[in-house]
């Protein structure tokens, strides 16, 4: 399990201080898809970066199977790097514009795993097939791909090291509704296949309710609600969660 306990993150800029995350606790459990939902700027991306061991919390702990994931210890640990993977929000800038699709997906394999060239090629080819990326795209650069294709390359890259923990930061932001639906269905399908503990971060309440096994609602740096979700938005109790549900367009 990947567990963040009582995590607080404060940014200092000269004399001013901003607390992005306040005393937040969240666990990622194998086989469970957790959605962390909240407005832009509520601290959800900061919390996900702390969980992934990219930035350290100001206080609190993050443990993977009892081992600290807090940098800088995490950075030198290849096993941890391979086990927790993040798909970043802006697919365009997450990829090196000079790298081909093949190289973008192969890069984490080269850096974190010791595979032969033939094994690497087999894994990249199989990932491209799974993500429905035609083999003709292997030599293309990011600038030659559509938004949906870029997102698929980022997901393939994150899956390359067969991680046990996957974090998607705004996986469908900027995509039109039909592409969004296909990416969400793909994430759900991959989650079922791999059983990886998955955290999806989004501002999109509709996507959150569509995907969640567990839903955590964040408001101004705090997790105000965290509960299993079985398809009835009526189970959400916090006034802010209720407001998010009420603001969704009536479906009738």
């Amino acid at each position: 399990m990947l567990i963040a306990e009582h995590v607080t993150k404060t940014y200092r800029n000269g004399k001013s201080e901003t607390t992005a995350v306040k005393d937040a606790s969240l666990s990622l459990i194998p086989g469970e898809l957790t959605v962390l939902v909240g407005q832009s700027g509520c601290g959800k991306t900061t919390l996900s970066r702390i969980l992934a061991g990219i930035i350290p919390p100001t206080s609190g702990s993050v443990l993977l199977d009892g081992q600290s994931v807090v940098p800088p210890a995490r950075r030198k640990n290849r096993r941890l790097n391979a086990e927790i993977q993040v798909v970043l929000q802006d697919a365009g800038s997450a990829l090196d514009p000079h790298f081909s699709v093949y190289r973008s997906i192969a890069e984490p394999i080269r850096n974190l795993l010791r595979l032969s060239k033939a094994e690497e090629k087999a894994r990249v080819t199989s990932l491209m097939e799974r993500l429905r990326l035609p083999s003709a795209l292997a030599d293309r650069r990011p600038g030659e791909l559509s938004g949906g294709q870029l997102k698929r390359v980022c997901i393939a890259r994150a899956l390359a090291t067969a991680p046990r923990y996957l974090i998607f930061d705004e996986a469908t932001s900027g995509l039109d509704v039909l592409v969004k639906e296909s990416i969400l269905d793909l994430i759900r399908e991959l989650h079922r296949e791999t059983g990886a503990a998955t955290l999806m971060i989004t501002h999109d309440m509709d996507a959150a309710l569509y995907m969640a096994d567990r839903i955590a609602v964040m408001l101004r740096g705090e997790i105000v609600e965290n509960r299993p979700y079985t398809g009835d938005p009526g189970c959400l109790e916090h006034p802010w969660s209720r407001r998010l549900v009420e603001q969704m367009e009536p479906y009738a």
Partner: protein
Amino acid sequence: MRELKVSELSVSLKDKGQPLVDKLSFRLGAGESLILLGQSGCGKTMTCRAVMGLLEKSRFRVSGSASLDGGELLGMPEKHRAGIYGKKVAFVPQNPMTALDPSVSIGRQMDETLHLHTKLNRAQRQARIRASLLEAGLEETERVCHSRPNMLSGGMIQRVLIALALSTGAELVIADEPTTALDVVLRNETVDAFVRLRAKGAAVLFVTHDFAAARRLGGEVLVMREGTLVERGDVREVWASPEKEYTKALVRASALSKGARHADR
């Protein structure tokens, strides 16, 4: 403004035959809204750019007609366009950050625009700016006026641009995916600002791929795919009973959580 009338509008790249917009016609009157809805690449943004005269003549071939109160907009000389756009016609882009100068406060930018397009004195301009911000749903008018664009959220900047359209008394507001990156609360606040704009008599041409945002705004919807019209009608009626499979897919994808996902598991 009495009406924007677009007839048989077609747009294609000069070096390719395939039309990006194919014989599209619609009419939009004062106090009404019209929604162009479809996926990326369906021609909705291209339609707006053609109406605004923003397509380079060297790259695009534009035919048909787009008239504002009888005056033809297509092929209008640059000096005549300058008298219409920014004053009678306002544009709210998808990425509002790039529409404003990042180094200048919101208050000063709004003041400069009013100075350019109206004959108001400074005190009148300041009063108009604050009233417009309030009307666009921005209550902290002083904070907004003193902020630079990067100090405000995307949803607030969208509403600053709506306030700008309100302040200059724009009669036609063209909005390109103004709610795409916003959460449901900000999305609704932004759409509601367009509703207020419409209530003041402005015509709103609204581009989106999101049926939920379109439904909240109301008005006539034109569902587009690959440059052609798929279905049209009152947006709430089309949402409730779409006829075409493509429209049904868009309605479903705009309200995913309504589906039987959890029952399927």
